[in-house]
């Protein structure tokens, strides 16, 4: 029952939010919903509940990790939103909170559904729930952004649906008892899946979920969207949406691996991963718009996730861990950048230079984010990237490892040059924007602490969950 | 430490001012002049010692200490060379490094003294001095490496001892090259023609002499003596390489050393009278040639020792 609550509570809250009038009431409502969800997640984490709907809705380690990540990130977003909505007067204010909560519901559905079609439904729902938020500003640019976002990800997701049906077709030869499209049964009777259909399904699902993750060359919507969306929406997309898409990809990877199609899928995942890294690097080093910068950084990290899945072994563990870290770090970065934009009063690249000289706390957090996102010890991403790197060496992919390291160096230069300029560049005489705000500092601060903690301390339960998740992906923990 | 070693050092201290004199005399004779007496430098020194000194207001204590340090370092270096052929007063593995660096210390302080005056002439001299030294140093060390390799000993006393004498017959060409390069280094370190010209009196062309323009009285005496000591020291070193005398009893070895030094001084005189002074730009070339010569010697020796 808890499982359903996880989905229904935010859904109902979303409806309720659209009923409420005035942000003064809506923001507490949002906080309430977020915290309730977090509490529910804690509850299910402590006492694993029984699957419902004959196994379509269930909770396994992988799902739990994603669920917890999204829920935590969402809580931070809610906190940030309190300080943010206080400032941003915008026509979309009404639907804003509702859409946020709707996204949470959809994401929970994705995390909990062990039925591929249901997962697809949830994923599409997340896409749609975020669309109005991107259009928050109601200007031409955000209009263009949302249009591209909608069309590209809708096409991708449609192809994913085709992939789901292929999967069902592949399962046709299964035993009569097998529940169609249910992950457990797909894996249990993997040997009886039709290889050709399975592989075709994987191709379409990879394109579909890859589009939503933002793997190159399907990443094209990302910079535009992240660049235009409000920063907390950017956080939610870069941290939450991507995690959900990654979960989809991970599940189908698990099925394919179980079915012995590993040799078929690994090159694909590695290829897309490396390509994403290359593209991200190429666009990072000439990027002036900070939000677009973060978008390409997100492409880079999605590429890492793909590589981790593709290399398998400890890489799978690294990928799941990296999914968590990426969510936290992206949240942190988007919040800090959001503060910078508010401080400068505009998102124009020129104006942002030195914006955080006058907002040192946010500046500090942005720097933490910079070093965390570039995988410097002792932050969380370092551990996960370390694991992936080790897996690459272990699997003998020396060249991929070498390319990855070279690209890391290049990417670091791109990110550092721009972000350091924002933090202590020459301050630009711009319209004096908004100062710091406890809510808008609390959220990134908490995330910073989290990402630092994950770098030096992985709690036992989390580690077990990661190991189990990696196990389902045909890998293992170090 | 043996009495002969001490005696040898004392003797070198005494005869040091002789060397420039002999060189000058030779030069004069070859030019058909009578030239200044061989003992000229002694008279100069004693006269200077009685003179008072003039100090520039710009100078600091460095200017006063430098001359003393010059003599002191040269003296200390003397204690490291086995003048009696057998054993130096102070001998230890790798003492040749100390030898070279002691002389370098003296040079360093003298250069600082020159810069202390703030005179552009002395600055120029100092600049040239360090430049020449920078080229001479590798050659000197290569010569040391050569004798070390030839003898298998790592201290000067050992390297210039019996083992070297034993090496001569087998490795004559290599050691000869080393000796020649050492002689070239001597010319440079002693600031003689073709590198420098002590006799000239046009400041713009001088190196060592212009560096000490402001020194006067006792300071100048010390500087001159120090230079002379350095020169004779190199001469002694050269003698040690060319004619290892470890076998000889001290009573024979010491006269032999004197004779050798005189020969070296005459050689200097001859060189000075037959060659012209090089343009400053060519000096590096000259000394690089010395290094190359020594390096060749080392290579030959290594090739010999290896197989």
């Amino acid at each position, binding site marked *: 029952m808890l499982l359903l609550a996880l989905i229904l509570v935010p859904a109902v809250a979303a409806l309720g939010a659209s009923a409420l009038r005035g942000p003064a009431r809506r923001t507490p409502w949002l906080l309430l919903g977020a915290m309730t969800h977090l509490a529910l997640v804690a509850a299910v984490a402590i006492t694993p509940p029984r699957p419902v709907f004959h196994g379509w809705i269930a909770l396994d380690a992988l799902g739990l990790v994603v669920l917890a990540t999204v829920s935590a990130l969402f809580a931070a977003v809610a906190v940030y939103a309190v300080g943010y909505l206080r400032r941003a007067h915008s026509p979309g204010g009404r639907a804003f909170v509702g859409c946020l909560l709707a996204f949470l519901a959809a994401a929970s559905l994705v995390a909990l559904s062990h039925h591929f079609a249901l997962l697809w439904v949830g994923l599409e729902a997340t896409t749609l729930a975020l669309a109005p938020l991107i259009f928050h500003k109601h200007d031409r640019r955000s209009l263009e952004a949302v249009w591209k976002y909608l069309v590209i990800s809708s096409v991708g997701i449609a*192809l994913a649906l085709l992939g789901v049906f292929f999967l069902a077709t592949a399962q046709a030869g299964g035993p009569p008892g097998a529940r169609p499209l249910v992950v457990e049964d797909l894996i249990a009777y993997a040997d009886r899946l039709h290889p050709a259909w399975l592989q075709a399904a994987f191709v379409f699902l990879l394109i579909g979920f*890859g589009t939503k993750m933002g793997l190159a060359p399907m990443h094209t919507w990302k910079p535009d969207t992240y660049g235009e969306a409000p920063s907390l929406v950017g956080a939610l997309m870069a941290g939450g949406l991507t995690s959900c898409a990654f979960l989809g990809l991970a599940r189908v990877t698990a099925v394919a691996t179980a079915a012995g199609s590993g040799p078929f899928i690994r090159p694909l995942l590695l290829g897309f991963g490396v390509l994403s890294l290359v593209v991200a690097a190429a666009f990072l*080093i*000439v990027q002036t718009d900070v939000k677009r910068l973060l978008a390409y950084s997100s492409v880079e990290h999605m590429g890492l996730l793909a590589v981790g899945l593709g290399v398998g072994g400890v890489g799978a563990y690294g990928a799941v861990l990296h999914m968590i870290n990426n969510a936290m770090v992206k949240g942190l970065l988007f919040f800090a950048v959001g503060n910078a934009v508010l401080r400068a009063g505009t998102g124009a690249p020129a104006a942002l230079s030195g914006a955080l000289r006058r907002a040192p706390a946010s500046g500090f957090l942005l720097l933490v984010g910079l070093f965390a996102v570039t995988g410097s010890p002792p932050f969380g991403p370092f551990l996960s990237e370390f694991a992936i790197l080790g897996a690459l060496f272990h699997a003998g992919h020396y060249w991929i490892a070498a390319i990855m390291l070279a690209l890391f160096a290049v990417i670091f230069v791109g990110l550092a040059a721009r972000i350091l300029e924002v933090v202590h560049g020459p301050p630009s005489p711009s319209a004096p924007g908004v100062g710091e705000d406890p809510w808008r500092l609390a959220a990134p601060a908490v995330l910073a602490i989290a990402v630092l903690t994950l770098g030096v301390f992985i709690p036992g339960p989390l580690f077990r969950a990661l190991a189990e998740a990696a196990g389902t992906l045909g890998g293992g923990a170090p | 430490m043996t009495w002969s070693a001490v005696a040898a050092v004392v003797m070198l201290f005494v005869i040091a001012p002789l060397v420039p004199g002999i060189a000058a005399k030779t030069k004069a004779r070859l030019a058909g002049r009578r030239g200044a007496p061989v003992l000229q430098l002694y008279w100069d020194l004693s006269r200077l010692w009685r003179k008072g*000194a003039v100090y520039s207001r*710009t100078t*600091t204590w460095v200017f006063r200490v430098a001359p003393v340090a010059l003599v002191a370092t040269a003296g200390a270096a003397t204690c490291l060379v086995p003048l009696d052929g057998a054993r130096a007063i102070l001998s230890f593995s790798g003492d040749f490094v100390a030898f070279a660096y002691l002389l370098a210390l003296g040079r360093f302080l003298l250069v600082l003294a020159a810069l202390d005056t703030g005179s552009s002439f002395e600055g120029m001299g100092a*600049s040239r001095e360090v430049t020449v030294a920078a080229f001479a140093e*590798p050659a000197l060390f290569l010569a040391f490496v050569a004798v070390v390799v030839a003898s298998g000993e790592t201290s000067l006393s050992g390297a210039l001892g019996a083992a070297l004498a034993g090496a001569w017959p087998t490795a004559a060409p290599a050691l000869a090259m080393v000796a020649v390069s050492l002689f070239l280094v001597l010319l440079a370190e002693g600031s003689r023609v073709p590198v420098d010209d002590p006799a000239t009196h046009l400041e713009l062309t001088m190196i060592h002499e212009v560096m000490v323009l402001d020194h006067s009285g006792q300071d100048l005496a010390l500087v001159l003596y120090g230079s002379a000591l350095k020169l004779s020291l190199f001469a002694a070193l050269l003698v040690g390489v060319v004619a290892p005398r470890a076998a000889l009893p001290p009573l024979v070895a010491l006269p032999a050393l004197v004779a050798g030094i005189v020969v070296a001084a005459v050689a200097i005189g001859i060189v000075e009278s037959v060659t012209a002074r090089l343009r400053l730009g060519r000096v590096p070339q000259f000394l690089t040639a010395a*290094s190359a010569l020594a390096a060749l010697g080392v290579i030959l020796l290594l090739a010999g020792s290896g197989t």
Partner: protein
Amino acid sequence: MTLFFLGVVLLLLGGAAAALLPRRRAADAGFAALAGGGCAAAAAPALWALAGGTVADLRITAAVPGGDWVFGIDPLSAFFLVIVCAVGAASVLYGVPYLATERAHRSVRVAHLLTAIEIAALALVVVARSAMPFLIAWEVMAVLAYFLVVFESERVAVRRAGLIYLIGTHTGTLALIALFAYWGQLAGGLSFAALAAAAPMLPASGALVFTLGLAGFGFKAGLVPLHFWLPGAHGAAPSHVSALMSGVVIKMGIYGLLRLVTLVGPPPVWWGWLVLAVGLASGVLGVLWALAQHDLKRLLAYHSVENIGIILLGLGVGALGARYDAPVVAVLGYAGAALHTLNHALFKSLLFLGAGAVLHATGTREIDRLGGLARRMPFTWTAFLVGSVAIVGLPPLNGFVSEWVVYQALIRSADVSPARAAVFGVAGLALIGALALACFAKVCGAVFLGQPRTSAAEGGREVGYGMLGPMFVLAAACVVIGLVPLVAVAPALRVGALVGGVGTAAVNDGLAAVAPALRRITVLAFALVGSVAGGAWLMRLASRRRTQTSSETWGCGYERPSVRMQYTAASFAAPLLAAYGPSAGVQVTREHGAFHTHPLDLVLDKLVLPLWTRLRNWAISVRPIQQGRLWVYLLYLLGALVALLLYLALQLERVSW
């Protein structure tokens, strides 16, 4: 070990005190006392270990994969720990008065805090016995150093230098991460013990590990050609931080290399030769570039490159000795490297502190705008002179001792027939020494001697005791090691034996090889000092009875010599650079009557930046990929789909079903 961690805690408390205590005086006092005490406390176990005692390891059960976090102090760690603590304490004490004037417009408290954490991180780097804590401490050290470098971040040059530093160090860290990731997955654990146990499994006798190590640690050590970040950063940082960075931080690269060799065992031959060659290049090029500098601190920074070269000469010959089982050569080489690391830490930080004093007093770092400071800042001048004599490697100071040990190793390699070509390192080292002499003659002469060239130099006044004190302590250390080498050489030999992996017997061999020589060096040193002092005294007596007149400097008949006629530093270096410079990419030009040397860094300006521009241009050329038209984006998507379908088809052709 507990004492050590107590020291670390004290350091951090000191930083906290500097940051938090309300009243300025209290903050400064608390910082100085606590941080200084921390250094002392942390150094104590190190000294104990160097004296031959053993310190128990500390093992913390790790909460992250990769095995426990182990901390330990063996001679190698101890040796470097002493360096960290000594220089750390000096720069802490110096920093308080040095930054006192900055309070108005900069966050000095934060700077002090960062300094304290930096020292703590350095200490942790050398005691870490497991890859995770090592990397963490390493990165903390590197990144904090960045923030200290950009202390004056409002200056664009400083920001640029900081960025280049950050890029350099991060690239190095990446190499290290790769190193441990590769080694760790082979060893199945990340504790150094596990790594060492797995060393025999490394293919090609650890070629990859040694390559990555040389790259990663080389970036930190600043060896040519990986030094390009160094001069800018060390020049831009506040002087006491420069002292810390030049004295200690870059030495962590040396520590890393030594530790690597300790863990893996004798490196392959090519590595030894490579290190030797790199050392030679770093030494010669470093000092040549230094000769061409006009900025006092940049000049000192390039001398760090030079000295790293000397250290690498020792390291390289030691590696060769170890490979060709000539234990004495190995021990002497490694020991020489370690010892020179210590000595360079002492005199280089001393020199940077002196430069800081000059900057503090005159407000300029331009050598050719200074002069005549010897009269105005006599104590600083004395300390600086000691440092200069030491760095040039002249007796009777410590620089001579360590160079002498390196010479020993090089000369003894002649007996090891496969490695005997290494004796030519002697000539290289001699050249380096001679050039360094020239360079420091230039510095001392132009900055301290002669007459002040500008009013800034005219107005220079001696700095306070708070800044002089640390300088004199360091100077005293230089003198002591110079006069009584055994105190430093014995522990260095222990380190060498550990790194060479030849056990204590070799220590005794090494000692037997050098101990008598060292005693004689002591005799020589004392004799020299005594004779100079005595001679000077005698001269004073003698000159009493002579007339002494003082006048203007003799201008060879020219009546009115002016300050502008003094030889400038550029002119002083001109002849040497004219001869050697072209090979090092230094031009010397004569513009309106004055020499000008144009120091451009061969690597940074000729290699790194052009490469980067090339890369950027490529990136710009591919930007149109993201050209904004939706249908093109959809075409990408379709393209990807079609490609995958083709791949699928090919696969299906193979798998017949």
